[in-house]
């Protein structure tokens, strides 16, 4: 058994810094790299891509990235764990193996975790009496059944552990929790058991710290952002895990950013609910037990995390089509920038009312004044410029499209000294709403499929 495992964070979301995973595998020693690609909306985008072409539906950037880092990962024996497989992890693995062959790699094994996609099973599950009701509102899933775009159970670390046990150099999953991607190699290397709740909770907390990439190592750092060195070359966080569940958060030397108690705390409190019950498929971690201390430069120890048994359910993340939005922006300059923008908004709303279009909401914000803090923002005095931002939402595509045609006319038929209409008419975008539900673990079985070269 190893006495320490180094797990690096490579991506915090689909669209994150492309150089980060390259730096992680080249600038210092690591054993594993985890990459999180999936947000709630992502799965529906991927489903749409897969409907157009059954070979798509995963993070295509992942294939390009692997082309760049595969040789060094093979050479250094760094194993990659990612949920970038989206709604088509098998095709994703095939594309990466194709790339590997082109690069002349002779031996490479990918473990693909499947079984999380339950979109085709909804009717069957409903017949079995599984209600899949909305966890937040209690509504029946039948109200959105016809509009469902994606439905995935969140798996945890264990299917990834199974893939690692089968010797996978890379594990590609669909909807696996971000924390599970980090926890899995610890379970695998230290042979943690399914009921060692404190250790599992420790690894889960490490996963929470890594899951947003640079946010733990100096990015979006409110405590003292001016003091963060070399943000341009920020080093993403690395979790050094120990068999007893202790974790040291660090980063490679000679990279930018910082790892301090404050930077790690900011990530610990990010997007959490009740801190005593951080619920994952693997355990319930109690964030009020976490002990944290600086033990060296860019080294923060996280220890003594307590955990409790996992629940009998997987969370299910579903998405459904919920209308359309569009946004129009116009910039008004001094003198009276804000007054002009307000007048333009009034004119626009009056014209929309004349057209009798049906909107669920029309929202006006003024960038440079109140779009961040709403009513908390102090009244603006003598701004040199203000951007009027109007958004609309409707179930009626045509209403939203027509709104897009009412923005440009304001330039010649509204208040003066206005600019910033360069991008053409605002186009309607689909609203994808999110439907969280629960499903008994016994009804969804993760499976590992092995795909390999050699």
């Amino acid at each position, binding site marked *: 058994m190893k006495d320490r495992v180094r797990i690096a964070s490579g991506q915090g979301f689909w669209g994150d810094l492309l150089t980060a995973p390259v730096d992680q595998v080249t600038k210092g020693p690591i054993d594993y790299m985890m990459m999180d690609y999936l947000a709630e909306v992502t799965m529906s985008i991927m489903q749409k891509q897969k409907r157009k072409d059954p070979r798509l539906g995963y993070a295509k950037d992942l294939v390009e990235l692997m082309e760049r880092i595969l040789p060094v990962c093979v050479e250094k024996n760094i194993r990659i764990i990612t949920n970038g497989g989206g709604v088509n992890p098998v095709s994703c693995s095939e594309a990466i193996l194709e790339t590997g062959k082109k690069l002349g790699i002779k031996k490479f094994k990918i473990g693909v975790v499947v079984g999380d996609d339950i979109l085709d099973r909804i009717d069957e599950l409903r017949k079995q009496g599984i209600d899949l009701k909305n966890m937040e509102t209690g509504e029946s899933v039948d109200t959105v059944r016809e509009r469902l775009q994606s439905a995935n159970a969140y798996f945890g670390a264990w299917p990834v552990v199974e893939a690692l046990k089968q010797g996978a150099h890379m594990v590609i999953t669909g909807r696996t929790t971000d924390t599970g991607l980090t926890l899995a190699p610890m379970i695998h290397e230290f042979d943690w058991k399914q009921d060692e709740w404190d250790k599992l909770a420790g690894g889960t907390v490490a996963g929470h710290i890594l899951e947003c990439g640079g946010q733990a190592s100096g990015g979006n750092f*409110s405590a003292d952002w001016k003091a963060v060195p070399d943000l341009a070359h920020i080093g993403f966080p690395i979790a050094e895990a120990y068999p007893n569940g202790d974790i040291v958060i660090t980063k490679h030397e000679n990279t930018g950013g910082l790892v301090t108690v404050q930077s790690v*705390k900011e990530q610990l409190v990010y997007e959490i*609910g009740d801190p005593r019950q951080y619920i994952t498929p693997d355990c319930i971690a109690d*964030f009020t037990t976490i002990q944290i201390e600086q033990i060296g430069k860019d080294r923060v120890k996280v220890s003594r995390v307590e955990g409790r048994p996992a629940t009998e359910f997987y969370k299910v993340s579903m998405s459904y089509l919920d209308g359309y939005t569009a946004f129009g922006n116009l910039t008004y300059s001094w003198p009276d920038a804000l007054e002009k923008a307000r007048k333009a908004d009034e004119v626009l709303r009056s014209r929309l009312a004349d057209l009798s279009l049906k909107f669920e909401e029309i929202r006006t914000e003024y960038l440079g004044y109140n779009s*961040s*803090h709403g009513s*908390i923002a102090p009244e603006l005095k003598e701004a040199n410029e203000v951007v009027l931002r109007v958004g609309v939402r409707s179930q009626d595509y045509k209403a939203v499209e027509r709104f897009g045609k009412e923005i440009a006319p304001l330039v010649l038929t509204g208040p003066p000294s206005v600019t910033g209409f360069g991008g053409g008419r605002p186009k309607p975008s689909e609203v994808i*709403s*999110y439907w969280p539900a629960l499903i008994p673990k016994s009804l969804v079985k993760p499976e590992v499929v092995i795909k390999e070269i050699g």
Partner: protein
Amino acid sequence: MKVRLLDICHGRSGDKGDTANIGLIARKKEFYPIIEKYVTAEKVQSHFEGIALGKVERYELPNLWALNFLLHNALGGGGTKSLKNDAQGKTLAAALLKMEIEIVERIEL
């Protein structure tokens, strides 16, 4: 004395659907009892009047010198539905740091 939270705290905010979370962290150990005493859910609710349309819940993490606030119904529907520029509540931690509290204790900033 009057204290602005920015001077004794840092923080980070984000979203879960239409609920915003704000983690408020004391800069020094001795500031934690101050924020625990004065930055109540009620005070935060009234600070975010017109923004947090639902209730505000507070959780304590004394081990991290931190409070976690959940602001329900605060993001205009959340996700891709929201028409807000800040649909994910990323700037709400800064909005909370603007808050001033009147305290009877003397503290050194």
